């Protein structure tokens, strides 16, 4: 067993004794074999001295046990790293951001506290995965949908807190925005309930999220300030139908108008599903639609379009709702593009028939899946699968010009820095009004390759920041580098986060270093940077 940095073995043993008394001996894990289970399978530090490893892990079953563990750690300065299910692979998994932390594994807190069919909401504990919730709803014949990420094996709470997203309608596909009400254990063991949960007897915890006074929930997004033990979510009433169709435009110069107009249509609720941008002429020949090539100059792209007869750009709109409403919405959307051609892909009536179930993209219907793992497997097309990947995901302007500029500069920078790219997405619109580029970059179990990769990606982060593009989320190896780029007014965002951290967690025990926020005692020692 290792001891957290800065603690003596005696103090750590004393903390573990108190933790064992609270949760039971069998739920405290201290052997190397046990703690190895919490390694980040996709770590960029694999087998290097800097790899972030747990000193121990503890799996409480109740909020009272969470409070007891937190108090035991707070009294002795033991770093504590809560995880929900730890499946956030590509963004850190179950490993702590600060080596030597005790992982607080909340997988046993897996109760669906409530599903309110009339209100279209639920309350869950952090160990409830999307599959668990789907099973719960199916077994009760619910007509409510969850919105799921892909893969759907993670925790509803964990994914929302990390700002994950899905594929169905607004506002459900932004998982943090779809929450309503939180219960959080603070570093001193006190329980905070946000919104209407602060009013004893209120029956509106999952109806009005803001309560009274400053809105506190955002403090716990990508946070080091508390341990979320309950969270309410709004669920999507199953629509009558699903429809998706494409708007095709022939010329390179059409993209800014296309992006602006679909933005206007989306903001006016003419369609409610996630829009997608593609380029039929660049993806001709069956190229992977999730791997957007570098966009050529306009004259070259127009020449390719003329020669192939394929449109330069395509925007896919998705609609959820009553069929007659969808048809009217689509007719209106088409009227806004007088020079376009249109492709209608599918009208699916709900609930899904068994035949539809076999052919649809399940996450678009709120159905969790693990299928994407089978797609990355060794095959004739992929003879050398990697040891994992991490995600690089900058927020870029939601304009045609912004997308083209980001596509070219990031593609060229990756080539210059020898950063291999598994996937390079089209602009992703999981979050209303925003574009994100999502790149999967392979990691290996080879320290030399990972060292090169870490240095190169830090340079890529700087290049993106120079253009005003900032990551919304990143692997722990880059938490500090990304936080450094949010530097307006001498890093006031980080400094305010630190002030709040010092006030709410003065001993600096919770999620140390996560998202680039370090407690005072480690800032004074220079942190891990």
């Amino acid at each position, binding site marked *: 067993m290792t001891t957290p940095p800065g603690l003596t073995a005696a103090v750590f043993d004393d903390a573990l004794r108190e933790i064992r008394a609270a949760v039971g*001996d*069998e739920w*405290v*894990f*201290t*052997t190397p*074999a*046990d703690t190895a*289970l919490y390694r980040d*399978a996709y770590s960029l530090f694999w087998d290097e001295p800097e790899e972030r490893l747990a000193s121990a892990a503890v799996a409480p079953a109740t909020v009272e046990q969470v409070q007891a563990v937190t108090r035991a750690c707070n009294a002795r300065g033991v770093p504590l790293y809560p995880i929900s*299910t730890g*499946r956030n692979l590509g963004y850190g998994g179950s490993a702590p951001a600060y080596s030597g932390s005790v992982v607080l594994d909340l*997988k046993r807190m897996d109760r669906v506290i409530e599903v309110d069919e009339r209100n279209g909401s639920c309350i869950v504990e952090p*160990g409830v*995965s999307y*599959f668990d919730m789907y*099973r719960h709803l199916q077994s009760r014949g619910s007509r409510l949908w969850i919105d799921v990420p892909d893969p759907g*094996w993670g925790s509803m709470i964990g994914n929302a807190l990390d700002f994950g997203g899905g594929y169905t309608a607004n506002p459900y596909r932004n998982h943090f925005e779809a929450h309503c009400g939180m219960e959080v254990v603070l570093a001193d063991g006190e329980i905070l309930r946000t919104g209407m949960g602060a009013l004893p007897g209120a029956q509106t915890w999952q109806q009005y999220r803001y309560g009274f006074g400053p809105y506190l929930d955002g403090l716990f997004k990508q946070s080091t300030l508390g341990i979320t033990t309950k969270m309410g979510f709004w669920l999507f009433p199953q629509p009558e139908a699903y429809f998706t169709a494409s708007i095709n435009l022939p010329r390179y110069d059409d993209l800014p108008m296309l992006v602006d107009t679909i933005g206007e249509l989306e903001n006016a609720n003419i369609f409610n599903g996630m829009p997608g941008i593609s380029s039929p002429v660049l993806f001709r020949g069956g190229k992977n639609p999730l791997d957007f090539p570098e966009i050529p100059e306009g004259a070259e792209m127009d020449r390719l379009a003329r020669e192939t007869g394929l449109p330069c750009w395509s925007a896919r709109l998705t609609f959820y709702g009553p069929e007659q409403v969808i048809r009217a919405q689509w007719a209106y959307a088409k009227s806004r593009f007088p020079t376009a051609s249109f492709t209608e892909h599918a009208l699916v009536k709900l609930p899904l028939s068994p035949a539809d179930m076999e052919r649809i993209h399940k996450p678009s219907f709120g159905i*969790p*899946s*693990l*299928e994407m*793992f*089978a797609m*990355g*497997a*060794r095959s004739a097309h992929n003879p050398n*699968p990697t040891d994992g990947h991490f995600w690089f995901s900058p927020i870029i302007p939601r304009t045609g010009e912004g997308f083209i500029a980001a596509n070219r500069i990031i593609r060229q920078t990756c080539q210059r820095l020898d950063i291999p790219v598994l996937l390079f997405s089209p602009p992703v619109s999981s979050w209303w009004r925003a574009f994100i580029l999502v790149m999967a970059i392979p990691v290996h179990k080879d320290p030399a390759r990972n060292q090169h990769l870490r240095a190169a990606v830090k340079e890529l982060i700087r290049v993106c920041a120079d253009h005003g593009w900032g990551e919304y989320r990143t692997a722990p190896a880059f938490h500090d580098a990304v936080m450094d780029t949010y530097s307006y007014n001498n890093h006031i965002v980080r400094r305010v986060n630190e002030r709040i951290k010092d006030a709410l967690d003065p001993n600096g025990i919770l999620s140390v270093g996560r998202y680039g926020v370090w407690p005072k005692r480690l800032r004074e020692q220079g942190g891990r940077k």
Partner: protein
Amino acid sequence: MSHTPLLTHRRAVLKGGALGLIPALSSAPAWAAIAPGVLIDAHVIDRRVWPGALPRSDAPVLPFDGDITALWYHRLDPRWRRPGFVLGGITGADTLFVLEQLARTRHRAVVSRRPLSAGATQWVIAPAHPSIAG
């Protein structure tokens, strides 16, 4: 305290030919070699990576083709919520990785693994915590 050793006390005695393991089929891997003395309660076989002979076994053999979602959701996870149950498998490393992560949530662990040919891996997942020991 370590909880990773195989916790199958109820049937930890080798019973030779009575085991639910594959006997010496010429084209199928020997289960006793990687999990001696252990009764396997079911086998999952990814036909994509192991198109060869299926285990001849009293235990159910659950074939699938690449995507483990339906098999895990309908068959494995409900069973993993109860004590006991030792699962053997021949899959690609990708599927084993997924099952290993999912098994961990149900307090189970990969207790044995052996590479076979062409990307296939033979493995055993068993209870790894006293709370679900069979």
